[in-house]
């Protein structure tokens, strides 16, 4: 059944179009930045964008920060919101159930496919933006490397013990957000962590959309419902008078993965982010299961 769900996921044009769009936005931004050499000043604009001119290898982090607020959650909400409601609207839900595919098994397979999609999308952005960064912005592009280069190369010798080849040490040390250098190995490790964190955050979105998908009759309704939750959360996150509930909002710690690029890693928000998403995933999956398992399928 899981293989069946994967097959359905990857034979749909929508899957590929959304991944292409998600990867396309960072490409577009990279082209503009590379052509104009005008990145937002540090501390402004999208995270990491100010740093990528000095080192294209940081571009995956910048790209993730670009797609995280809208593109990624929208595509995840669409895929997850479609999972049950789409089958119901298409009439195939009843044929799957009488095939018979148990309702729990169906939900688990859907979750598996959604998780695969999230991971696929996040990894696609990461890999393509790394290539974009290296090719368009350069691994320490000649024009841009000058200013922050001092910070990058100076203490580079101190932390570069992990780098295998001495010759590329200078080139492969990357400035972290805190100004301290990272080796390429460290960077890869932290990007991996960030990918994991973002994937878990998106699973929180997916769980909400999946639950709504078992409730709503239309896939669009479920996806929009999940996005409405996110938008509401974003509004409340910035509202001082809502500070009591802010720690529990789904989007509160979405950007905590940026802390992976600090030296040393600033774990507090990351841990809270993981924890809050785990709670959202657990609660909404349980609700989705309870609803689907007891629901009359009349579509």
């Amino acid at each position, binding site marked *: 059944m899981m293989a069946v769900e994967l097959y359905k996921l990857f034979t749909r044009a929508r899957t590929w179009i959304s991944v292409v769009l998600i990867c396309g936005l960072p490409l577009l931004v990279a082209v503009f930045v590379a052509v104009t050499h005008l990145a937002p000043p540090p501390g402004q604009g999208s995270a990491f964008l100010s740093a990528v001119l000095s080192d294209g290898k940081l571009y995956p982090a910048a790209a993730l920060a670009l797609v995280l607020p809208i593109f990624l959650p929208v595509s995840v909400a669409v895929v997850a919101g479609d999972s049950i409601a789409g089958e119901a609207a298409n009439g195939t839900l009843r*044929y799957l159930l009488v095939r018979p595919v148990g309702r729990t098994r169906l939900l688990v397979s859907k979750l598996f496919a959604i998780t695969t999609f999230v991971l696929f999308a996040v990894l696609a952005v990461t890999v393509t933006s790394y290539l974009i960064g290296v090719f368009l912005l350069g691994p320490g592009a000649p024009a841009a490397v000058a200013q922050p280069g001092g910070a990058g190369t100076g203490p580079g010798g101190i932390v570069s013990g992990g780098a295998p080849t001495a010759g590329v040490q200078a080139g492969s040390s990357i400035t972290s957000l805190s100004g301290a250098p990272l080796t390429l190995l460290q960077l890869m490790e932290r990007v991996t962590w960030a990918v994991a964190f973002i994937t878990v955050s998106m699973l929180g979105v997916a769980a909400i959309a999946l639950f709504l998908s078992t409730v709503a009759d239309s896939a669009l309704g479920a996806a929009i419902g999940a996005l409405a939750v996110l938008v509401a959360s974003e509004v409340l996150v910035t509202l001082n008078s809502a500070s009591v509930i802010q720690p529990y909002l789904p989007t509160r710690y979405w950007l905590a993965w940026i802390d992976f690029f600090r030296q040393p890693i600033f774990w507090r928000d990351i841990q809270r982010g993981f924890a809050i998403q785990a709670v959202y995933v657990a609660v909404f999956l349980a609700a989705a299961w309870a609803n689907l398992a007891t629901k009359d399928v009349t579509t």
Partner: protein
Amino acid sequence: MITTRSLTKRYGTVTAVSSVDIDVREGDRYGLLGPNGSGKTTLVRMLLGLVFATSGEIEVMGSRIPRHANRVLRDVGALVESPAAYPNLSGRANLKLLDAAGPRGDRRTRRRRIDGALEQAGLAGIDRRPVKNYSLGMRQRLGLAAALVRRPRLLILDEPGNGLDPHGIRDTRQLLLDLNQSGVTIFLSSHLLAEVEQQCTRIGILDQGRLVLQEELGTLRAPTGRVLVDSADAGRVAGLLDGAVEQRDGTRLVVRHPDAAALNERLVREGVRVSSIAPQIRTLEEVVLEVTGAGNDQVGGPVRGAGDPAVQGSRP
């Protein structure tokens, strides 16, 4: 094969199915008839574990539904309301996908089973076109093929004739007959009386959620003990057979008499001109109209019998 006891389904205040006791025996070709909105589809969905009963019990092939649905449904092929498929995939890909999704979908025999089912459903020449380009009739055939891929012991078909042209209807009828002869029990629901009349051995009639009749078709269609007479001398007939004439409509009469031949002989002897005479056999349509009200797609009060003389005449 299928037994329900006091099966009831309520949606809020609406009772869709009310205390239904159905009994489908092995080898039956059972036709569930009823006007639109009489609860046929809800009943079929309950038999398949899609809709949960408010009260009552369902047993399919000896096991309780919905508790053992996952075990029982392996041996059941089903068509629920309309067929459905993934529109971006070909018919064959749809069948493969569905086969791989559940139990009894042995990968080694899949190709052979799918080819067989497509052939049975009249889609042997199917190409790689996606299902979204299929005609309604092709979709219906594909749905039928999907129900046959795992060689079920029981077929539960909701409105199998929908969207089929006369050829398709005839093919389907023949297919179901053949399957039934090879041991498959068939349960189908339909509002098409002629279809049920031609292919079922036993019928149940559902009206406003209640099973108002369940009988062998042969019993239902036994002679009614009346004779239909068409005579230019209808007035004389009425005079001769006073008391036995139940109804008179122009030249046509309904006469209570056990033997049409004997009655004919008597009338002719009396010099009555008889242009046609035959024992009255109720059509299924009459039976259905007699025991059901109007469907819920007709707005207004239920018009029972709707002034059809034949129906009134056959009312006991």
